[in-house]
């Protein structure tokens, strides 16, 4: 049976009060044509409509194969084993975990039990995060950190309860913990259903088909300001800052909301990848170009931006506006305040125990060395490594090798041919207290 015929399963995790049931009800109401089974371990005060709801006691079993991280969920094996017998198969299964659940055993169930693996495909892990409370929860509970670490999608819910700066900071913290996850902001769990279902997150071949990399981009800019402007020449006014130069992209038609900012950010990542054009003090920055502002002279400096039609303009700056006291002024010298602002990276370092290590390296890998290194790493640190993903360029092999793992379970397979693409390696490890230096060094030793 191939992946298309398997019933997809999404795991919904998140602390009590993060909005799991609200999201569940939203999914069920929007996907009402489908037969969806919901397996619940926690019977909340909010009822679930329409679907077949199965209550199950969360039962975590060790597989007694000597590996303490090989735990599975016995209740799921039983319930799913029964569901798959029915002739009118379900189109989708949603597993809602308790607020305090470790997603590891749930995910591993879909790899450790042959019969379950034959009939069901884990589609993705969606973690709901209560924007108002997650900062305290992360410090206090391992489960909360694990739920963030395992996620393919982090739904940052209840954004109306905190201010934008807090949200930016929180998002940066979450992204530092989990570099693979897509972050979606919302209120009352109002997210498009296609951002949480049918992700094929555990089918790397499928997932990479849609997006060439599983690493969420690390933006080369730290700050975006959106300005509502009428035609005219505007002055970009900067004070002395920490660097003698700074990259900037001016984007026309920039939306001020979360979706618009993200779309703009993706677009600007590509602009930032282009060679920069140096712009001297008092020079003009063209819309859409990668400009490199010369800031070595002391005192306040000006650059200019020409706007030809009424426009919503986004400034994507390499550093935050604060660092250079960046201001936009109209032709009368009046300061124009931004209609929206977004900071893209952490303003200060969080020292979370859970974090991501992303490795990107050109060149080819010796398969024997990689096997030895990865095998040893997962054997020794498998308990603390929650998720692993990789695209590897094996020396002499025309195919890309992709792999992914949950704790010690690792699944590797050839993907598509490299063709004309540059051969390079990408790996992500998400785990607790990982030794970044040792892991990077270990991988580098596998390069040919």
């Amino acid at each position, binding site marked *: 049976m191939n992946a298309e015929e398997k019933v997809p399963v999404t795991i919904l995790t998140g602390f009590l009060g993060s909005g799991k049931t609200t999201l569940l009800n939203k999914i069920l109401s929007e996907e009402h044509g489908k037969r969806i089974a919901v397996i619940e371990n926690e019977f909340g005060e909010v009822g679930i409509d329409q679907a077949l709801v199965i209550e199950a006691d969360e039962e975590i*079993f060790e*597989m*007694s194969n000597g590996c303490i991280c090989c735990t*599975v969920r016995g209740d799921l094996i*039983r319930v799913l084993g029964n569901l798959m*017998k029915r*002739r009118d198969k379900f189109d989708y299964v949603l597993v809602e975990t308790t607020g305090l659940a470790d997603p590891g055993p749930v995910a591993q169930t879909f790899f450790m039990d042959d019969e379950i693996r034959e009939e069901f495909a884990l589609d993705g892990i969606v973690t709901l995060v209560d924007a108002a409370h997650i900062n305290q929860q992360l410090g206090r509970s391992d489960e909360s950190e694990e739920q963030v670490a395992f996620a393919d999608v982090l739904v940052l819910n209840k954004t109306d309860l905190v201010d934008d700066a807090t949200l930016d900071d929180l998002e940066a913290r979450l992204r530092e913990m989990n570099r693979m996850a897509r972050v979606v902001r919302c209120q009352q769990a109002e997210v498009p259903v296609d951002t949480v279902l049918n992700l094929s997150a555990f089918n790397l071949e499928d997932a990479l088909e849609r997006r060439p990399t599983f690493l969420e981009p690390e933006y080369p800019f730290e700050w975006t300001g959106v300005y509502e402007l009428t035609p005219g020449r505007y002055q970009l006014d900067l004070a002395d800052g920490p660097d003698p130069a700074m990259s900037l992209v001016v984007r026309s038609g920039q939306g001020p909301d979360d979706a618009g900012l993200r779309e703009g950010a993706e677009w600007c990542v590509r602009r930032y990848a282009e060679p920069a054009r140096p712009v001297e003090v008092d020079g003009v920055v063209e819309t859409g170009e990668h400009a490199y502002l010369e800031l070595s002279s002391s005192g306040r400096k000006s650059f200019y931006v020409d706007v030809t039609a009424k426009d919503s303009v986004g400034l994507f700056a390499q550093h935050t506006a604060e660092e250079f006291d960046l201001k936009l002024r109209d032709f009368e010298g009046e300061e124009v305040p931004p209609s929206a602002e977004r900071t893209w990276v952490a303003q200060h370092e969080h020292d979370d125990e859970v974090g991501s290590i992303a490795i990107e390296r050109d060149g080819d890998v010796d398969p024997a060395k990689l096997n030895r290194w990865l095998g040893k790493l997962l054997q020794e640190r498998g308990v603390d490594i929650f998720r692993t993903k990789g695209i590897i360029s094996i020396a002499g092999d025309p195919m890309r090798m992709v792999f992914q793992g949950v704790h010690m379970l690792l699944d590797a397979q050839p993907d598509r041919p490299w063709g004309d693409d540059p051969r390079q390696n990408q790996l992500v490890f998400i785990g607790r207290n990982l030794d970044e230096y040792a892991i990077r060094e270990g991988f580098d030793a596998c390069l040919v």
Partner: protein
Amino acid sequence: MTETKVTGVLQSDWSAAIQDYPIASGWTHDGAVLVVCDSAGGLYVFDSQQGELLWSEPCAHEGGALAMSMHPVEAVFATAGQDGKILIWDLTGAHSRCCIEVGSGWVENVLWSPDGARLASSHGREIQIFGVDGAEQWRSDEHLSTVSALGWLNSNELVSTCYGRVTIFDSDTGEPNQRFEWKGSLVSLALSPDGDVIACGSQDNSVHFWRRSTGEDSMMAGYPGKPAALAFDSTGTLLATGGGETVTVWSFEGDGPEGTYPGSLELHERAISTLDFAPDGFRLASGGRDGLVLVWSLHSDGQGRPEGAAMLESVLAKVCWRPDGKSLAALDGDGVVTVWKVS
């Protein structure tokens, strides 16, 4: 319905269709009636001579049936399902004579005691015992996890399995008499007819068994899959086990099976899903995910050869000998009930 290919000792008798995947079945003690229930909650009562459907109930258990048990003496059977109910039925009519509402979760096991005086059931982590009238006699404390299987050693002792533990209860008092521990998820249970050996298949691809008389614990590891099908023959000499494409048969002759090689019955192309020994003699029926039903003639050392075969369209949910051993019923995943005469 497509015609099945049948060879050897199996001779086509009758077949019938039910609505959905068969979950459980049972013959009456006189072999006159076969009852089947399915995953849509349907209940079907067939006359064993011609396969005539005597009566049926399309949705006895909302959500699906999970277990059934034929009363050993009276013309009565019990069913249990996802609706949290146990129903006790008269064979003669489509009305349950007793409905026990156990709770909101699944009732996964239901089993009459050998003397027919009690009905054991499990619901989540709890066991409940009822009389024939449906009145509760006692219930257990919560097990460590959901009860996976129940079995009667004799009319006075009930065995339960769950993750990590086998418990033997006194069926009069509900007091636990004996416990065996094993850190694994026990997924199947078979008891030797003399009540001394308790055999369990474990999620970790092993078969465990405990001897009550000595307290000895043995483990047979190395199965390629989890042994979800187990069966003892009527003398307690042979234990047939699934857990892969091969039927592995352990012989309890002499000092065995510890330290002996088991019999290996290899003809199935996919994992064994169901096993049943004929009421007497070393005759075993096996069914697999490949749709193949085989009847084997075994020796007391566990070795054997096939003496009958039939190919069905779908995975075998259950094979089940009629109490006289002269008929075999097979239930497959397409909802087809096939009955053969066995010479």
